[in-house]
């Protein structure tokens, strides 16, 4: 059994227990909080939106945890299915709103000036996140499900309704595009 399979099995058992054990649910929360939040950050630049969507996702997961069935798939796929629905619902609402200006997004990066080495990492992260936000919504969604959620292409296909092969192609194209965007941005910077 690989590490990933072990974690999946463990999470599924934990999720079954979470239907009757509050502590088990909180353990899952601790395991998945960062992943869920990071997933929303792939989708949205606004931190408040990501906080709200994260809270909504866990509250819904708690409300419906008794409905989770391990035989239907891993807990991560179930949880990120909820997260995706919330992200898509928010996207539909946001269509009616003006997009957040990029300068405003930058202002969310934090008010405290970090140490120099943190600043370098932070610059790189900002560049990365800025470049991700320039991708198409579907590309951002799949990158989030792949890298933040850690789902397999098959699991992503199950959630999104795409074919497994199509997921692979979109991911590859997304990374290609992201690399090119970052290289262009870095060249500009130099």
């Amino acid at each position, binding site marked *: 059994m690989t590490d990933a399979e072990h974690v999946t099995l*463990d999470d599924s058992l934990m999720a079954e227990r979470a239907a009757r054990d509050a502590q088990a649910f909180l353990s899952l929360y601790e395991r998945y909080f960062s992943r869920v*939040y990071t997933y929303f950050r792939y989708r949205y630049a606004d931190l408040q939106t990501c906080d709200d969507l994260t*809270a909504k996702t866990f509250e819904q997961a708690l409300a419906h945890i008794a409905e989770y069935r391990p035989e239907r798939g891993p807990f991560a796929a179930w949880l990120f299915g909820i997260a995706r629905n919330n992200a898509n619902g928010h996207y539909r609402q946001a269509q009616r709103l003006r997009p957040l200006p990029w300068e405003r997004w930058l202002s969310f990066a934090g008010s405290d000036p970090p140490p120099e080495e943190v600043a370098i990492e932070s610059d790189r992260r900002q560049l990365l996140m800025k470049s991700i936000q320039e991708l198409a919504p579907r590309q951002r969604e799949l990158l989030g499900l792949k890298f933040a959620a850690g789902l397999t292409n098959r699991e992503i296909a199950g959630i999104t309704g795409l074919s497994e092969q199509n997921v692979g192609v979109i991911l590859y194209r997304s990374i290609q595009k992201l690399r090119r965007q970052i290289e262009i941005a870095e060249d500009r910077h130099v």
Partner: protein
Amino acid sequence: MCDKQSEELFAEQLEAVVRRRPFSLPDSAPQALRAELRLAEELARLDLGAESTIRERLRASLSVQAGARGWTPQAHPAPASALKASPAWPARLRPVGAGMAVILLVLVMAFNQPVLAAGQRILGYGYLPETGFFRLSETVLLSGPVVQDHEGMAVTVRQGVIDSQRTRLWLRFEGSPQPLEGAWLELADGQRLPAESWSWLPDEHQRTGGMLSFPALPAGTWRSTLGLPTGWVIPVEWSPAREVPLAPTRVSVPYPTNTPTSWATQRVCVTPEDAVRVCVSAAFADAEGTHILLEGEATAPGTQLTWVMDPGSQGIQLVDEAQRVYPLQELITSQDSAQLDQASLSLRFSSLSGEARIVTLQLSGLTFRLSDQPGALLTLPGPLSLTFSLPERQPTASPTPRAVSDLRAFPYPAPTPTIAPG
């Protein structure tokens, strides 16, 4: 190599990258593909959870909601329509209503700090996600979270509770989990309480924190020090639950260094006579050997102790638990070093054996003067012993002095002092 082949190679390697394992490409693979997989590695490591400001609040809220699910009987849920229909609730629903009122109150308490104060006064109960409800009058809480940073890692004491049964501390780790086996809590009088039990949080697999359980601290204990075997020494302050600040400020404390002042809470002392106390205030090991800072203190206020050293005549040695003896190699007094005051001695012994864990500093014939008796040369009775334990040392000697922590006091039979004419 065509784009289709690159795409297939990328797909093959991507699962490994997402599981944070290194990718492997043939030499003929294009540079662009390597760059893309490196970018994928970067994305797989991207964790933005720390940006969020809701983690603790959301956890508290979920904890309350999850707890509420346990309190409400699942098999016979109260129909919401019944609650709406009747202004006076039927008797059978009153417990449900009361439960809901408590839940609502708890939710308000969790998110509205001023209301928390009022709620606490009215009910006499507090609530913490870690422990559930507790009686304010019978509980002591951590005054506020304390964080200590060291070499890119951080340990935060984020919550603490003393009740009649035990003392519990909840820790959060950043950087890497810290071993908890051998943790201790030291009281202001030097008494050390080893942890009775501990556990990883949230679990064995993801060790982002831990919970330590100690015996209940004596009533009136407001200050203590948490020590972890890897050298973390964190002051832990307590307050009656009723007085804990509603919005506690996170306090940052420095990681202990080799400076004697940093080890003040870990000193090992003996008081061989009423007028004088002798302490091992710091110890560290480096490639040159084991260094110990010995300090003498006059117990009378305003009285200064000065060592009167004749190195050749002093019996000073270090002995480990296997009775291996490590002779004194160097003795530095205030006359030799501007860093030391008159009451301090810096001792250097040869390097300890790798297995040595508990060592005893043996002193005999130490002589000193007190400023209030300038004409008298005093001699401490000997042999004087100060025993302390050392943490496990790294197998290779480091050129940089490394802190040796976990000094542990052992009882010492107080001998009678002798006074020699000055």
